[in-house]
C-alpha cells in the first residue's frame, strides 16, 4: 500500500542525477515526499513540520556523495536525523543494586500491558532477578486471571487481592509481600485507562506516590495514529514517565507514533514487544525504527533472526563442506530445518526492503507445505542415498515417492533443485567467499521452489 520512500524520491529526483549539490528547489521537492511518507507512517502533523524544517536546513547545500543519487542522499539525511531523535536517552532499565526495584506499567486499554509485563518478568528472571507481578487491574473482567495465566507461563509469582481492594492498597501490600518473599523486582500491571479519565489518572498518581517506582513505563501500540502525542503528553504530565515500550511491533504499522512521542515528551524507548510469545521482547534499535518509519524494510532484524536460529557449530561445519564441495542431501535437510526455526517465511519476506512495498511480491505466498514435502522425501531416502544422491535412479525414485507419500515428479524436482544448488555452491566456493557465522549457510541457500 505504501510506496517505499526511497523509491519515490528516486523517481522525483531522478532528473537530478549527476548533480554535485542539493539545491533549495531539489530539497523542496524531496521534502514534500518526505512529509507525505511521515504522515502515512502516523507521525504527528506538527512533529512532521518541525522535523522537515530541521532536515531542510541540514540538507541545504549538502554535498551529494559520489556513490549516491540525490534521492538517496536526501533519504540518508532524513534517516540520520530520525536516528538522532529516537536514539537519545538511556534505553536500559534502572535497577537498584540493593533492596526492591519497582516498575510500573501504564497505558490505554488494549495497548498490551499485561502481555508486556509477562515478557518483562521473564526477561528479568532470565537475568537472575526474582520478579513479582502485581495485579492492579481491578476493573476489566478477568484481567487478574489473565495476569495469573501469564505469570504461570513465565513461572513468576503474581500478587493479587481480588477486584475489590483499591490499587493503592494492593501495591503497598505487594511491596511488603515482595520483601517477605525475597522478590527484588516488583512489576505493577495497572488497568488500561483513557488519558482524559481524570479519576483513573489520579489513581495512577496515587500508586506512584505510594511506591515511588524506579521506572514508569508507558505502553504504546505501534498502530496508534495522530492521537499518540496527546496520550503520551497527558500520561507524562500526570506521572513523569521514564520510558516507553512500543507494542505490537510485529504488525506492519510503520510506527511513526514513536517519533512523535520522542519529540513531545522526550523519553527513551526501552523495549519493543514483537509477538505473543513470552520471549518476544526486543531492545530498541533507533536505526531500524528509522528504516521502518520510512518504509524501508528491516534487514537487520532478519539478520538477527537468522543468527538466532542458525546453530553456529552446524554452520561452520557446513561451511567446511561447502569449501570441499561436499554438500549432500543430509546437509540440505539440516539447513531446511534451521530455516524453519526462523519462523514463518512470509513474515521474513515482509521485512525485506522492496518486498514490503512491492505490489507484485506482496501477494507472494510461501507455501510452507513445500517444506514438509521436501522433508518427507529426504527422510524417505536411505542414508546412503542422502550422502550420494547420484545413485538415486528410477526404481529408487519410485520407492522414495511411495515412502514419502508424494509423487515421482516431486522427487525428480527435488533432485534437480539439489543439483542446481550444488552447481551454485561450486561457483560460490570457487570465488573464495568465506562468509562469517551462520550466514555462510544462508548466502548459498536458495529457496527450493
Amino acid at each position: 500500500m505504501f510506496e517505499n520512500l526511497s523509491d519515490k524520491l528516486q523517481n522525483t529526483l531522478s532528473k537530478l542525477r549527476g548533480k554535485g549539490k542539493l539545491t533549495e528547489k531539489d530539497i523542496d521537492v524531496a521534502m514534500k515526499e518526505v512529509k507525505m511518507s511521515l504522515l502515512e507512517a502516523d507521525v504527528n502533523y506538527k512533529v512532521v513540520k518541525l522535523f522537515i524544517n530541521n532536515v531542510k536546513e541540514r540538507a541545504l547545500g549538502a554535498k551529494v556523495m559520489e556513490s549516491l543519487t540525490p534521492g538517496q542522499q536526501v533519504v540518508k539525511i532524513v534517516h540520520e536525523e530520525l536516528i538522532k531523535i529516537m536514539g537519545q536517552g538511556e534505553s536500559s532499565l534502572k535497577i537498584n543494586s540493593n533492596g526492591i526495584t519497582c516498575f510500573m506499567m501504564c497505558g490505554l486499554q488494549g495497548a498490551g500491558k499485561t502481555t508486556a509485563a509477562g515478557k518483562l518478568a521473564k526477561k528479568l528472571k532470565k537475568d537472575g532477578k526474582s520478579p513479582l507481578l502485581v495485579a492492579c487491574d481491578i476493573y476489566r473482567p478477568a484481567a487478574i486471571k489473565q495476569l495469573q495465566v501469564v505469570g504461570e507461563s513465565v513461572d513468576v509469582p503474581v500478587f493479587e487481592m481480588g477486584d475489590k481492594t483499591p490499587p493503592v492498597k494492593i501495591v503497598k501490600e505487594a511491596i511488603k509481600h515482595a520483601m517477605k518473599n525475597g522478590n527484588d523486582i516488583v512489576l505493577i500491571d495497572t488497568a488500561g485507562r483513557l488519558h482524559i479519565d481524570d479519576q483513573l489518572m489520579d489513581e495512577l498518581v496515587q500508586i506512584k506516590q505510594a511506591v515511588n517506582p524506579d521506572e514508569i513505563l508507558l505502553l504504546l501500540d505501534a498502530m496508534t495514529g495522530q492521537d499518540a502525542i496527546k496520550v503520551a503528553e497527558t500520561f507524562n504530565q500526570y506521572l513523569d514517565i521514564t520510558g516507553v515500550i512500543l507494542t505490537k511491533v510485529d504488525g506492519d504499522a510503520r510506527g511513526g507514533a514513536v517519533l512523535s512521542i520522542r519529540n513531545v515528551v522526550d523519553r527513551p524507548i526501552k523495549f519493543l514487544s514483537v509477538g505473543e510469545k513470552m520471549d518476544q521482547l526486543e531492545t530498541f534499535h533507533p536505526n531500524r525504527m528509522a528504516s521502518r518509519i520510512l518504509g524501508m524494510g528491516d534487514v537487520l532484524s532478519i539478520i538477527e533472526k537468522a543468527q538466532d536460529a542458525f546453530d553456529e557449530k552446524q554452520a561452520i561445519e557446513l561451511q567446511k563442506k561447502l569449501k570441499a564441495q561436499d554438500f549432500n542431501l543430509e546437509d540440505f535437510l539440516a539447513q531446511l530445518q534451521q530455516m524453519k526455526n526462523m519462523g514463518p517465511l512470509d513474515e521474513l519476506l515482509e521485512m525485506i526492503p522492496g518486498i514490503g512495498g512491492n505490489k507484485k511480491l506482496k501477494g507472494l505466498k510461501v507455501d510452507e507445505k513445500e517444506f514438509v514435502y521436501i522433508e518427507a522425501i529426504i527422510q524417505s531416502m536411505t542414508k546412503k542415498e542422502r550422502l550420494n544422491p547420484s545413485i538415486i535412479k528410477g526404481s529408487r525414485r519410485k520407492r522414495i515417492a511411495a515412502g514419502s507419500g508424494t509423487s515421482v515428479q516431486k522427487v525428480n524436482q527435488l533432485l534437480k533443485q539439489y543439483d542446481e544448488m550444488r552447481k551454485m555452491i561450486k561457483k560460490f566456493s570457487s570465488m573464495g567467499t568465506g562468509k562469517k557465522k551462520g550466514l555462510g549457510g544462508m548466502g548459498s541457500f536458495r529457496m527450493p521452489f
Partner: protein
Amino acid sequence: MDKDKKGFFSKLKEGLSKTKKNLTDQIGNIVFKHKKINDEFLEELEEILITSDMGVETTMNIIDYIKDEAKKRKLEDTAEIKDVIKEYLVNMLQENDNEEDYKDKQRVILVVGVNGVGKTTSIGKIAYRLKQSGNSVIVAAADTFRAAAVEQLKDWCEKADVDIVASEQGSDPGAVVFDAIQSAKARKADVLICDTAGRLHNKKNLMNELSKIFKILDKEFSEAKIDVYLVIDATTGQNGIIQAKLFSETCGINGLILTKLDGTAKGGIAFPIVNVLKIPIKYVGVGEKIDDLQDFNPVDFVNAIFE
C-alpha cells in the same frame, strides 16, 4: 499537602481542556482568522483533518472538493466551508450503508480484529443490546488463545444474561464455533455471536485460522445470515486501512465497529476505510459500561467531530 495536590490537578485540567479542544473550535479559529478561502486557510484545514487520522489521501480529496465547491457555488466566506465539509463527510459515510432485511433468518455475527481493539468488550455490549431488544443470544468463546479471554467473555455474558459456549484455553477455535452452531440450531437462537482471538493481519497462519472459522460458519450454518464485523480502535492510525483490507480478503467484512471513541482520538481512520473498502460502520463504542455502545449514525458522528 492536600492544597498542593489540588493546585496540581486543577492546573492539569486546565492544560487538558486545551488538548480537548476539538475540530469546531479549531476550524472556528481559522475561519475567524482568515475569513476568505485562501491557501493559508486550506493548509490549516489540511492539518486539522490529518490530525484526525483521516490520512493524506482522504484529506487531499476533501481539500480538492472544497476548492471545487467553492468555485462552483461561488463561496468566498470560510464560515460556509464547515457545512460543505460536513456534507461531504456525511455523504461518504452514508453511501455505503445499505442495511439488508433478514428478519426471518437466524443471524451470526463473527467479530474479528487485531489485538487489544476491544472485541470481547464489544461483544458483551452487543449481546446485551440484542438480548434487551428481545432476541435469544448465544455467544461462542472462540478466543481460545489469549490468557483469560474466555473468563472475560463469561463475565460479560453473565452481565448480559446470555448463554455462552466455551472450551478451555488452547483448544481449537473452529471446534468451539462448530459446537456453538449446533447449540444455536438446537435452541433456535436468534443470534449467534462469535468472539475470536486478536490477530495481526500480517500473520498468515492466524489469518488462515480465521478463514477456517469463517468456512465452518459458512458451511455448517448456511441458512443463517452471516455478518462479519471488524473492530477498529479509534486511536488507530493509517495501518487501519491495511487491517481492513486484509481482514476483508480473509473473511469478507461487511461491517465496522469503531471503539474507544470516548478518548480524544477522532476515529478519522474510519473515513478512508469506509471510502476505499465500502464497508459501513455499524456500531461505535463510547465507554466501558455494558450500555456504552451506540448504533452508528453518520450525521451524529460527523457532527461530533465538528462539535
